[in-house]
């Protein structure tokens, strides 16, 4: 048998698209992290004399490299602050959803019976309701603070993790390494955290990378509808909403945040696909 596969040979080279995606996401993260140092809300003072200036290369100047918006605010400063808000909301929201969903899914799988039925019913309810309506109702009833907004966004998509975590936990419990750990005396906690979770992490990460852009878009939609990030705070979604009116005369107001969001979504998906392949130990050389 050729079981003597050497573990040397180094890692497979990373595809350039993934490198590019990582670079882009890294840049966004850096911008978000340093946003406070680069741009301050003071940079967002309106200046009606210089409203709707085009970006560099389209007749703009270095004073406003990405142009200005309808109130004469510097687009670059707005984009930097928006990236921070949007990334923060999407990231925290996605993590809330992932942790909540995975936990509920695993608990359902271990408990069975009534708890399992209840969780799965919640999953079905969540999956069958248009989430944006739920979010609208929640925000309309309870106000529009940033905290609540993040929680609402976080509830988006948890049912996917719950389904996956439950199914994979049930499958892993039935045979193989989980059963072996139980035979050796290990309890549900050890089996779930040390064995099942690392093994389903790849699938969960892929789900996360699918969910992350959707969460960003949800933030965008809610902000667009005026229920998300409230002025004077700004997010990519608010910018997109503002820019809609000027699409024909000052396209950059909508296009700049739009491109940033799309590229972020694309990059996360590319990265997720690649990560899934990397995280599968059976493909590791």
């Amino acid at each position, binding site marked *: *048998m050729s*079981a*003597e*596969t050497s*573990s040397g040979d180094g890692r497979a080279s990373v595809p350039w698209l993934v490198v590019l995606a990582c670079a882009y996401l890294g840049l966004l993260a850096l911008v978000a992290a340093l946003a406070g140092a680069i741009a301050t809300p003071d940079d967002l003072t309106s200046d009606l004399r210089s409203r709707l200036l085009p970006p560099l290369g389209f007749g703009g100047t270095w004073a406003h490299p990405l142009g200005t918006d309808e109130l004469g605010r510097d687009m670059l400063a707005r984009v930097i602050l928006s990236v921070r808000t949007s990334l923060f909301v999407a990231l925290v929201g996605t993590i809330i959803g992932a942790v909540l969903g995975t936990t509920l899914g695993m608990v359902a799988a271990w408990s069975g019976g009534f708890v399992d039925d209840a969780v799965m019913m919640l999953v079905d309810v969540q999956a069958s309701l248009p989430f944006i309506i739920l979010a609208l109702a929640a925000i309309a009833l309870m106000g529009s603070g940033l905290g609540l907004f993040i929680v609402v966004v976080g509830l988006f998509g948890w049912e996917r993790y719950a389904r996956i975590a439950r199914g994979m936990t049930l499958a892993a419990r039935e*045979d*193989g*390494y989980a*059963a*072996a*750990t*139980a*035979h*050796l*005396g*290990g*309890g549900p906690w*050890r089996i779930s955290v040390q*064995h099942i979770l*690392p*093994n389903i992490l790849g699938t969960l990460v892929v789900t996360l990378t699918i969910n992350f852009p959707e969460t960003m878009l949800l933030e965008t939609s809610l902000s667009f509808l005026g229920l998300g990030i409230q002025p004077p705070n700004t997010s990519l979604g608010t910018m997109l909403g503002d820019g809609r009116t000027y699409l024909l005369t000052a396209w950059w107001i909508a296009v700049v945040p739009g491109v940033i969001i799309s590229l972020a979504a694309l990059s996360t998906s590319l990265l997720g696909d690649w990560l899934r392949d990397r995280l599968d*130990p*059976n493909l*590791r050389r």
Partner: protein
Amino acid sequence: MPPLLDVTGLSKVFRLRGPNPFHRRRLTAVAAVDLVLAPGETLGVVGESGCGKSTLGRLIVGDLAPSAGTVRLARRPVSAMTRKERARLVQPIVQDPRATLDPRWRIGALLAEPLVIHGQRNGSADRVREALASVRLPPDIADRLPHQISGGQAQRLAIARALLPEPRLLVCDEALSALDAAVQADIVHLLRRVQAERDTAMLFISHDLDLVRHLSHRVAVMYLGRIVEIGPVDRIGTRQSHPYTRALIGAAPRIDPHRRRTKRATLEGETPSPIDPPPGCAFQTRCPLAIDRCRIQVPPPVRVGPGQIVHCHLAEPAGRDHPPLHRLAGD
């Protein structure tokens, strides 16, 4: 000496989902099984597919809860033990050892896990090295991942891991069936050595009669969830045996060029379904010797020889001449 394993009246009934939700059909996988096993003894369990031998193994390691009866290990019911207590008494060895190894864990970490679970973290590195040496695996294998070792190595590893909690009973369910002959011989040798060194008892579940004969002190033959015969390995299949045992042994292929083709006791028809088992003796629908009583009454155990118990109405207690069972032997 008190038995290590004491199984009394053990039954397992599965309720099946059927077309009628108000009347669930019942599948009797194990029915009223009694057996005992002494420390250091090997009991082979044989029977055709679906006879309940694997279910019996799962009941004994505590994977399944019995529908009736009890499994006692070292005089205590398995159902009343904690997971850790049970782990220190009984460990399973399964057919596909690789599936029991977490693909993400290195071999060394997998071997250390039972020690961590049982709070013996101190000196675990040494014990892992000893464990590898005791199953003749090279020490550098500890750095590998499970998919980087061969099937035979994986089975040795599974055995080493199962032995770390120092169990007194190993339940081997088709543990050698997936291995080729040379590796099988190797593992048989290993199991025998383990047994000699540690006085570990073994329940050896297999469909391979030759292997069972080779490894076991005693053999239990199962048919439709019941043990139809249990006895010392050299008495199984002899003249006093259950008609099913003799058919099972007659059906096993054998390579022996000097032996002429003799008429073998083979069976007609299919094994009845365990969902609606026949009344009386489970074997009556296929038994060439069945009499009226077999269709009505479940046969009681009859002691036909030293340590040999047969569940058959036609079996004669030890000491009498010319038991009617001789008719099948073709004398």
